């Protein structure tokens, strides 16, 4: 039997600020617990060491403004690189599954990155997805985001990608950051129904979450038939988390991973650093490695306190029915958009970076194509707290684009070179695996 790969990178020398939830202390007690348990010594576990992600690996997902080197801290590069180490361990068959217990997290980071948002600079799972595709030729991937906060960054990155099934269950966005992740957020025109949100009422327990898992998540995964399943493994649904109000337990998390059987799990949020994280991380490792976790519990755990309220259970059942229908009818909706022929859908939105106080405005163009997944452009204007404003234009060419769209994308970038009013324009050419940045002020183009 192959072992489970574990990469533990607590970034003991990195914090957003001294008293921030993302501080050095966050995984200290998790370290104490997993070291004291000696779980890393077991033959069913194989420990890995981290590496730095490269600018190219980041650029496959993100438009970092102005560039990767000045936007992304070394800590974020190590966290993303660690996810890639786990991807390699899994894909080369060294391990049966892999768990990256890393910080800083990533699931709030969106395609365009002007700064830190929801404690995230770059999206570790998304960087890993594009790495799996480029290095191992993987196409279909499912990401199950089990963080209590909506994985809005991951959702945005794969919004137009029909080959990534993104499922996020989280505390209702009306009661928690980032205030999104509602039932009607189902994905872009050609990827409708491969984004599935499951907002839950505050106070939902193991019982409620496992009903969702058994009756919605597992059936969707079975029908979608992904080549790789990723658990974006936040741990803040825990009953003791200080930033959220859910009632999930370490046993619940372990059981979730036993059922889900993720190929790769990547730690996201979770800020109950003494009462929850040491036990949940143990639980996830044990479940993934097939170790009996019945003896695992938090010091104050009392099973009687985690029964679901009947009213909430009814709401959950209705939600599950609705989302299963949305998922199963997705192809008909997509077909409807395809019949429109080659058109461009334009939208606009604003994004707030809570950590750094940046206000970003985006205008998005999405090419609808009858033959492929289409492509998108993003015009972005970010006002920093300091008063500095940066304006950029981004063109993204997915790997699955048809030749017509690919040609059009590259032309869109060339055409923008003559435009005024932008600081930088970018082309993300995933087919050629080349990533262009044009600094308009200095007339310099760089390629990675």
């Amino acid at each position, binding site marked *: 039997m192959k072992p489970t790969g574990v*990469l*533990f*990178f*607590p*970034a*003991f*020398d*990195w914090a957003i600020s*001294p*008293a921030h939830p993302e*501080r*050095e*202390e966050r995984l*200290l*007690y998790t*370290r*104490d*617990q997993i*070291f*004291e*348990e*000696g*779980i890393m*010594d*077991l033959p069913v576990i194989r*420990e*890995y*060491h*981290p*590496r*730095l992600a490269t600018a190219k690996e980041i650029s496959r997902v993100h438009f970092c403004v102005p560039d990767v080197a000045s936007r992304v801290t*070394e*800590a974020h590069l*190590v966290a993303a*690189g660690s996810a890639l180490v786990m991807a390699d361990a899994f894909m080369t068959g060294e391990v049966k599954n892999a768990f990256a217990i890393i910080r800083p997290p990533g699931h709030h980071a969106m395609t365009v990155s002007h700064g830190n948002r929801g404690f995230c600079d770059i999206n570790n799972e998304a960087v890993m997805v594009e790495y799996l595709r480029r290095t191992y030729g993987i196409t279909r991937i499912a990401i199950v985001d089990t963080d209590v906060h909506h994985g809005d960054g991951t959702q945005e990155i794969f919004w137009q990608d029909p080959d990534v099934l993104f499922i996020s269950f989280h505390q209702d966005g009306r009661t928690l950051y980032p205030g999104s992740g509602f039932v009607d957020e189902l994905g872009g025109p050609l990827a409708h129904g491969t984004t599935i949100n499951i907002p839950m009422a505050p106070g939902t327990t193991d019982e409620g979450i496992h009903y969702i898992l058994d009756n919605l998540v597992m059936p969707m995964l079975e029908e979608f038939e992904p080549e790789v399943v990723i658990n974006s493994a936040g741990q803040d649904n825990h009953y003791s988390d200080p930033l959220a109000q859910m009632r999930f337990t370490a046993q619940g998390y372990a059981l979730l991973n036993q059922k889900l059987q993720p190929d790769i799990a990547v730690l996201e949020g979770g800020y109950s650093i*003494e009462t929850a994280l*040491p*036990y949940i991380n*143990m639980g996830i490792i*044990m479940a993934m490695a097939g*170790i*009996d*976790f*019945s*003896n*695992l*519990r938090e*010091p104050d755990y009392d099973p009687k306190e985690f029964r679901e309220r009947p009213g909430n259970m009814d709401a959950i059942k209705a939600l599950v029915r609705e989302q299963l229908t949305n998922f199963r009818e997705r192809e008909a909706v997509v077909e409807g958009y395809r019949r429109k022929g080659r058109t461009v859908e334009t939208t606009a939105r604003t994004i707030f970076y809570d950590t750094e106080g940046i206000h970003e405005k985006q205008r998005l163009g999405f090419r609808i194509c009858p033959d492929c997944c289409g492509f998108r452009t993003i015009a972005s204007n970010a006002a920093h707290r300091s008063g500095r404003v940066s304006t950029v234009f981004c063109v993204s060419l997915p790997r699955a684009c048809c030749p017509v769209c690919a040609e059009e994308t590259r032309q869109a970038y060339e055409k923008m070179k003559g435009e005024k009013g932008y600081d930088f324009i970018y082309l993300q050419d995933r087919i050629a695996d080349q990533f262009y940045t044009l600094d308009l002020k200095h007339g310099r183009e760089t390629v990675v």
Partner: protein
Amino acid sequence: MLIGIDVGGTYTDGVLFSRGSVVHSVKNPTNEQDLFGTLLFVLDALLARCNGERVERVVLSTTLVTNLLAAEQGERTALVLLPGAGLPYSAYRISPDTYFLKGSIDFRGREIEEPDTAEIERVLEEIDRLGIRRVAVAGKFSNRNDGHEVLVREMIRARYPHIDACTSNDVSGRLNFPRRAVTCYYTAMTMRAWSSFADGIEAAVSAKIPECDLHILKADGGTMPVETSRMRPCETVFSGPAASTMGGVALMREPLNSLVIDIGGTTSDISLLIEGQPLYASKGALIGGHLTHIHSFAVNSVPIGGDSPVVEESGSLRVGPLRYGPAACFGGNAPTVTDAFNLLLALNIGDPEASRAQLGAVAGRLSQPLGEICRGVADLVIEALGEAIQRMFRQWEDEPAYKVWEVVNRKGFVLEQVVGIGAAAPAIVPLLAKELGVKYFLHPYSPVANALGAAVARPTLAVQVHVDTQNGVYTVAPGGLSGKIKGSNYQIGDARELARHFLRKMGAERGLSDYADDAEVYLEEQFNVIRGRGLAGKLFDVGVQIAPGFIRGYDGVAR
């Protein structure tokens, strides 16, 4: 004068060392049934050459405890565990006599569940009824609060004075409960046997050389006074490879990235020096399939040595792994690796004609020219050693890292030289170094470097403190001490001073005061404990150690 004796599996080596020179060396077959007799024989042979000069110190490296544990001949020992929640109890397959008790502690040293004294009574009664006389007690997070372990030990002492009890926090204060439990279990199991061996040696040495210090070599390449070793017999395991590594360092004395290879009769032990400093096994010594908390050099053993026989097997050449006797050139009855190198490199060691006759027979059976056979043997040896070496490099490069700084500044291991130790090293090492593309280092003392390493190694001692200012307490390892911190505004410097204080104290108790000022910080961690928006306290982990090195006055060997 200094004496170093290394009792190995096949041979016991001893040196008498004075003012940079080996005055006399002895090599004698080891009698596994009578290690004490073997030791005394070698000691007497060395003392006979003292010419009345004073011997200041004798250092022994022995396989006694290693052998006891390997042969499962330790005393029957009960293991009493307090694991609390976490891994299933089935994860702890250490002793056939294992008992689980209620009671648990968390990572901050807080009690989660109280022990049940009635349950402890029942378990102790059962252990006594079975006639078990040694008990090892280990609790999860006992290194943060050993109250439960101490409670069990005190109940044993009070009610069953004929039973010896060890607690895991006394043996090691590092995180990793299973390793602490195993180390404590092995300690309890071998304490009596080691102590009676130590009694004998101590009596013999003090009778022959009054006023002479007697030290025992540890797996970490340092020595400890024989008195200290009585409480920590397990630290004597794998001291043989440590002796060789220290011998290599003692002879070479340059801050180079090196590989020390001790080519013995049946095995070759390989260790790494990072800028001249021996590399430790990050997970502790592996004994009987269990990782322990015994600080040990990272040593890789390859079952090939100078006496490994050269045989033909189904038409092809094979080397080892058993030993039939010495090389043909030294009067053995079978062709060996040494014989092949003897001819290949025209080394002219022993009787080269005997090498030629024996390898010639192999060549005849394989219908190949003799030269090709010798070349083939060398290739097999170099290949096997090369693989082990590459594996060690990878192990070192694959060490986990927990800080951004460590990842960003990670360096690969760039080998600069090969240091050869052991009788067969002069034959094999030059070719190995050539294959690895680096220079080699051999010294006339290489064949006795293990005993020399023991003779000149200095005492080592590592002390680690964990301070929790929110709870106002500290714990010290080894020894399981704890106390309350004084004053407010406690800082890392205070924790460092606390660690140094305990190092000086323990050093004095162990007669190591001479070296206490050489202690260096090897671990320094501090974390702010933030609760709400404010600083609730700090956590410090500081380790100071007298690192492996050489005794005062040792200034290299005469070239």
